[in-house]
């Protein structure tokens, strides 16, 4: 165990370590190494133990940052929807908050509450998908693996139905705009949402029984892929992955945005930093997010949902000269926007700070010393979304 816990050298010179070239080089990916998108790792194997791991990303590099320089500010929300395609609501939020910061645009209270409500529901949907795909990654040991997946997607559909009722789209919502929201809640939505929350809450023990109370699941996950908290901070790992390493840090509580300063956010942490801790944090966060969503639903204030100035054409929205960074807590961690505006109708430079890229950068530190089957569990437990990694 101690060998696994010490810091490994990610820059190990493989020629010096293995002059006889006896190690096996295994290309892991890029076609779906697990259910987490196109990603490749070069694994140097000694028997079945990984000696060195070299991740390669960029297989879904869609040039979003270049595209953002060529479109007007109000045209960008549907573009960034596609980055973290499991949580589009929070993508939009991080983007429009950066624009609002430079425009010094106020957002009405109802819009802020709606944004938080959507973000929490999105977190539930995203974590459900993360747990479901993690179970598939672990494979046959979990009753065919697809059992948990089917359960999770059943509940995820409930939330997608809610979003579809508001925005008309299953995902890629394009509902946040500068100064507020585009869609208000339709008639009877609150009851539908309450029902969905109640159903998911009733079924949560099922996930507990299938995953974190399952002995096979525990044996595959416990003491595997231990990520040290201090290293995680240095690497910029955020979100559930950081909190599973014992660091009590959540931007919803520590640097509140939208309506999070008006409610109490309980931060879920775990101490061990292994794959099991990351799974536990996600399952517990679903519970907490359901509570928050209910809270935002009950206290939803009346009023306008958009405080922005209406413009006839997209190019009329001009952001004044300045540079800003805005980060929010998405299901995968801190998603930020570094915006450089030069006073025109398009951003001069827009850098999206993805949470998943930083999570993946822990792999060269975590993987050595594990077996190939552990590598899949570790990759699955980090919950990366390649659209966000590569952009």
């Amino acid at each position, binding site marked *: 165990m101690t060998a696994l816990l010490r810091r490994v050298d990610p*820059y190990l010179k493989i020629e010096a370590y293995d002059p006889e070239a006896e190690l096996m080089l295994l290309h892991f990916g*890029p*076609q*779906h190494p697990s259910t987490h*998108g*196109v990603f490749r790792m070069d694994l140097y194997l000694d028997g079945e133990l990984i000696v060195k791991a070299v991740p390669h*990303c*960029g*297989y*879904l*590099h*869609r*040039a979003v*940052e*270049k*595209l953002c*320089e*060529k*479109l*007007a500010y109000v045209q960008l929300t549907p*573009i960034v929807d*596609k980055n973290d*395609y499991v949580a589009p609501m929070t993508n939009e939020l991080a983007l429009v908050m950066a624009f609002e910061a430079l425009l010094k645009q106020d957002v009405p209270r109802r819009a802020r509450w709606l944004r938080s409500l959507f973000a929490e529901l999105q977190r539930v949907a995203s974590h459900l*998908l993360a747990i479901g795909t993690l179970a598939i990654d672990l494979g046959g040991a979990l009753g065919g693996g697809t059992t948990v997946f089917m*359960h999770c*997607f*059943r509940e*995820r*559909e409930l939330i997608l139905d809610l979003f579809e009722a508001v925005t008309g789209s*299953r995902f*890629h919502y394009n509902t946040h705009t500068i100064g507020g929201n585009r869609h208000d809640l339709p008639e009877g939505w609150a009851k539908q949402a309450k029902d969905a929350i109640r159903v998911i809450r009733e079924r949560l023990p099922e996930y507990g029984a299938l995953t974190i109370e399952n002995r096979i699941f525990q044996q595959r996950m416990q003491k595997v892929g231990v990520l040290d908290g201090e290293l995680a901070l*240095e*690497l*910029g*790992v*955020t979100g559930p992955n950081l909190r599973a390493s014992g*660091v*009590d*840090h959540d*931007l919803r*509580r*520590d*640097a509140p945005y939208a309506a999070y300063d008006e409610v109490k956010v309980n931060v879920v942490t775990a101490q061990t930093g292994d794959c099991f801790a990351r799974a536990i944090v996600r399952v517990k966060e679903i519970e907490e997010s359901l509570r928050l969503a209910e809270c935002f639903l009950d206290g939803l204030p009346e009023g306008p949902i958009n405080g922005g100035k209406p413009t006839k054409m997209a*190019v009329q929205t001009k952001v004044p*000269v300045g*540079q800003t*960074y805005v*980060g929010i807590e998405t299901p995968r961690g801190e998603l930020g926007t*570094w915006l450089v505006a*030069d*006073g*025109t109708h*398009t951003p*001069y*430079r827009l*850098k999206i*700070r993805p949470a998943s890229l930083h999570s993946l*950068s822990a792999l060269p530190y975590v993987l050595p010393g594990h077996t190939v089957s552990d590598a899949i569990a570790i990759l699955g437990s980090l919950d990366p979304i*390649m*659209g966000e990694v590569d952009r």
Partner: protein
Amino acid sequence: MTHEPAAPAPAAPRPRTVDDGSNFRHPLYQVLLDTPGLTVGTAAVDDLLTWGLTNAMWIFPMATSCCGIEFMATMASRVDIDRMGSFVRPTPRQADVMVVAGTITTKMAPRVLKLWEQMPEPKWCVAMGSCAISGDFYRNLYSVVPGIDTFLPVDVYIPGCPPNPEALMHGMLRLQEKIRGQRHGKDFAPKPDAALLKITQPSIPRLVEANRPADLSAAQERASDQPTVDEATPALVVAPEDAPEVAPLVANDFEGLLKEVGVTELPKDGPPLVPAAHHLELARRLKALGYRQLVTIAATHWLAGRGRKGAVADEVEHFEIAFVVRTVGAGSRTAAWAVRVLPGQPLLTLSGVYAGADWQEREQFDLVGVKFAGHPDLRRIMQAESATSFPLRRDHPADAPCAPWR
């Protein structure tokens, strides 16, 4: 009887195969035709095979992005494509249909083609979603393939961004129809609409920039894309021991540290500009002060005559590299600073202070083209390693039609 010289033997006919397009007939086929009543039997067998083919289409998921999630939803509880005999088989050797769900980039395209070639015949290809069909609004960007039909034969196109699970289901039903029709000799050759073929632009038109001359010739654009000699050699890095000696900083807050390095007032138009010599020491001190989390590194390319205040007449071309770090826990604060470097001039790497700077600096090197001295592993990260351009430079063309990958 005269002996005539033997006529030269006629050239041996080229061995015919089924694939060469000529009217090859297997000798057994004639026997089958001549046997009375057998055609009825073979037709029945053929119908049986067609029934089997259409109702057991095992899908190889070439799912790369958003459409892949809808693809998963189609497999999952509510829609459940299993009931029409389609089943996900994530190995090309045991699949009939490749569903390309998501954007295919120039880096991924060779892999997609290879996997397609590994699938045994008969095989079909479904393009799911507008990215796979045409590239949609990513079309004409430097890294995106404008539609997979530039290198794969596509049987069914399913439009949508992303298509709903029901749409994918419908597409699979249409594919079944197509297979049935083809087995009965029906012509399914595509009849493309000439008007649609003329569309070469992305679905959302890009805006022309006022500050960039529109009549920049193609040659000029290519020239600005070429790396200069010293940029092309990644070995050009300053060894860390050559770093200038600076006095250690002692202040206990960010403002104090900025004063120490000579920044007296915070600029309103961006993060404070710190002299490159003090950059590393500032980061080290900030980390000791509790800014333990590296948030992001973002480099901006400013063309000559432009700067953070807008148009500045005597400004030279330069890069501004911004760093953001964060304290952890309740009341989390960020600290941001920027360093200005000239083209070709490297900046000392932060990866010795924050391990996460490694990938962040690689990304800025890959896309913007700034170099980091002493970086342990400065390689491209997003683009293929053979790439030569730095696309996030402002003079890199954004709307250059990307040649179809072949």
